[in-house]
């Protein structure tokens, strides 16, 4: 019941954000990792000494207004589980003769970037060698996977936490970092969704596919003449004004968020129209003809180039190749490697819009991973099944170069990592999704949140 002090209507987005922290639900969250995020945001946005300031709305608004250089993050997730023996954990040496691996690997020629001998690469990812050569790159192998089931393992790699049931309640690492950013697209999600948890209330992402992103940011009626498009905009505005003029205070307040978000759209059309469409040259460069999803790489580059966003998540499906491995997994890896190569080349050639002295390759960290890798032996249908280990390629800003982190044994089992070399896996030496996510959060200035995810980091990546 309205007692005259509480608003009996839906609060605006800003009001919601500003009061969000004070709710009992958030009180619960405060005791968990979110509390650390909120405190960290307060510290970062408002300066030290404002620990009591739990005003996420203000923080978010400030973030939206910040136009200075910020570290960018692109997370590429290969859904289904990639076969890492074709990629960054290749088969050579004793592995070729110990019977643990499929004999076909013996016919594969392995290569490394000319100046980076540690980054030995299988035939699936050799098209990305120029990219590995051109920017700092590390390979991370031997990430422990407790449950090699798709949803559970993907969730663990993306969020660093286990999910109970199928509902992914914790936010992905990109979604968490995006809460420190603002604007129309604090986080751009291409090709599929990532777990968002409560972050959707704080920093709703822009979600689409690379091929559709340009269309989403193109004003309606764009095929009409400019005067018609102008008339459309004016008519819609006039219609809304007539409606608005018929409303009482309560109704107006409940529509405030809608009105506010309309301004976002006007700005989006003004700033990004026709800038994020993939032209034929881009489609050729990213080989969109072979796989339409590779347009997501091109769209991510355009979104960074035009400063639509600073955080991108991309998901590519199709890697769950239980049949015909050589004709399903391998071509898919090659398509991703080619597109990754084009992406890195474009980042290198593009100044960061917020920091023109540096290229986007200097300011962007790229993480490519998958929920798990696949078995060393083929199954009865010449495909592969799930294996309890995962891998990641980490490139770009802040990354140490030419390093191989973690590892798997001669038979493909997960090993531990002591910061220098693979060692026997123990509770202390094991690296996994949670340590990877914590390491990334730490790198992006969210150390307190990272501590809630894991007390350990993977040493040697950054």
């Amino acid at each position, binding site marked *: 019941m309205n007692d005259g002090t509480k608003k009996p209507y*839906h609060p605006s987005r800003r009001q919601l954000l500003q009061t969000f922290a004070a709710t009992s639900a958030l009180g619960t969250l405060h005791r968990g990792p979110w509390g650390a995020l909120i405190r960290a945001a307060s510290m970062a946005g408002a300066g030290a000494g404002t620990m009591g300031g739990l005003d996420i709305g203000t923080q978010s608004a400030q973030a939206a207004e910040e136009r200075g250089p910020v570290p960018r993050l692109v997370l590429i997730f290969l859904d289904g589980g990639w076969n890492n023996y074709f990629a960054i954990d290749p088969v050579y040496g004793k592995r070729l003769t110990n019977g643990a691996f499929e004999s076909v690997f013996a016919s594969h020629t392995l290569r490394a970037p000319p100046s980076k001998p540690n980054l030995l690469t299988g035939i699936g990812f050799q098209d990305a060698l120029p990219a590995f050569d051109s920017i700092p790159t590390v390979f991370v192998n031997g990430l422990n996977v407790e449950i090699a089931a798709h949803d559970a393992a993907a969730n663990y790699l993306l969020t660093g936490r286990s999910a109970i049931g199928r509902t992914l309640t914790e936010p992905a690492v990109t979604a968490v970092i995006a809460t420190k950013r603002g604007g129309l697209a604090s986080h751009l999600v291409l090709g599929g969704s990532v777990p968002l948890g409560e972050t959707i209330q704080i920093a709703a992402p822009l*979600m689409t596919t690379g091929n559709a992103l340009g269309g989403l940011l193109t004003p*309606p009626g764009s095929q009409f003449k400019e005067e*018609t498009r102008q*008339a459309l905009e004016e008519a819609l505005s006039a219609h809304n004004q*007539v409606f608005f003029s018929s409303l009482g205070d309560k109704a107006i307040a409940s529509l405030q968020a809608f009105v506010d978000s309309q301004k976002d*759209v006007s700005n989006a059309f003004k700033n990004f129209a026709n800038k994020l469409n993939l032209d034929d040259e881009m489609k050729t460069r990213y080989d969109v003809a072979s796989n339409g999803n590779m347009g997501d790489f091109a769209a991510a580059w355009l979104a960074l180039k035009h400063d639509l966003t600073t955080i991108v998540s991309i998901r590519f499906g199709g890697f769950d190749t239980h049949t015909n491995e050589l004709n399903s997994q391998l071509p898919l890896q090659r398509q991703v490697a080619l597109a990754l190569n084009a992406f890195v080349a474009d980042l290198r050639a593009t100044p960061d819009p917020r920091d023109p002295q540096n290229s986007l390759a200097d300011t962007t960290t790229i993480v490519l991973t998958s929920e798990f890798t696949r078995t060393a032996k083929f199954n009865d249908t010449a495909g592969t099944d799930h294996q309890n280990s995962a891998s990641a390629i980490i490139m770009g800003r802040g990354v140490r170069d030419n390093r191989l982190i973690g590892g798997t044994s001669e038979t493909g089992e997960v090993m531990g990592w002591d910061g220098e070399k693979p060692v026997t896996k123990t509770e202390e030496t094991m690296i996994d999704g949670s340590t990877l996510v914590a390491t990334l959060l730490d790198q992006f200035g969210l150390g307190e949140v990272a501590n809630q995810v894991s007390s350990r980091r993977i040493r040697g990546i950054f």
Partner: protein
Amino acid sequence: MGITLKGGIMSPRNLVWVLCIGGIIVGCQVAEGLLSKKQGTTYQAEGIRINKTFGLMTPEQFVENIKSSLNFDDEYLLESIMSDHLLALGGVDFRTVKQRSHIPSGQSQLTIHRLAWEIAQKVVETDVILEGKKEPPRAFTEVTIAVDRPYLPDDIRLPPEIQFSIKQGDRRYHAQLNELYWRLLSRPPSDAEVENMTKLFIQTLASENSAVASWKAVLFVLLASMEYWNI
């Protein structure tokens, strides 16, 4: 006490009947006036202010609404709303998002604009095709889409028989505009809205030289409007 003689023409019983019948007639006229789809009889004209709490329509409600109000049956687009745009419109997939949001974001607005435009185009084009096949239209039931238009001041220079034809079309135009308002917003347009929409229709007709384009523009404005999306 009777007005005249007991049992006469104006006996109390007859008077009651007369009053009842008169009351019914007057009541019907009032009701007709209130419910009329004619212009100028909206809540705005009557100074009524809406003061309820609005929330963003859910994607499920949106899909059902366009299916029933516009007879929209493009399965591909309907499915894509529920798959590709579900979260953008505040929906829940119970996998990555578990809490429905009635608070629009920039993404919601972009999606609303995109969908409103796509649906407006498809609805109009479908009815143009049906019109060509002499089959019943789905949403544009009152008008010949490619022909009818509002009567313009310059039309007075035209021969009387052409003017007559345009005026017939003008009536159908207004009937169709009313029809779209009732279908999508459950009310007739106000005078100001008729003026606004007619201005858009004429501007689009002048620049694109197509009444079909004009109807797309009009339908887009209704489908993208704040009133349509907030219930």
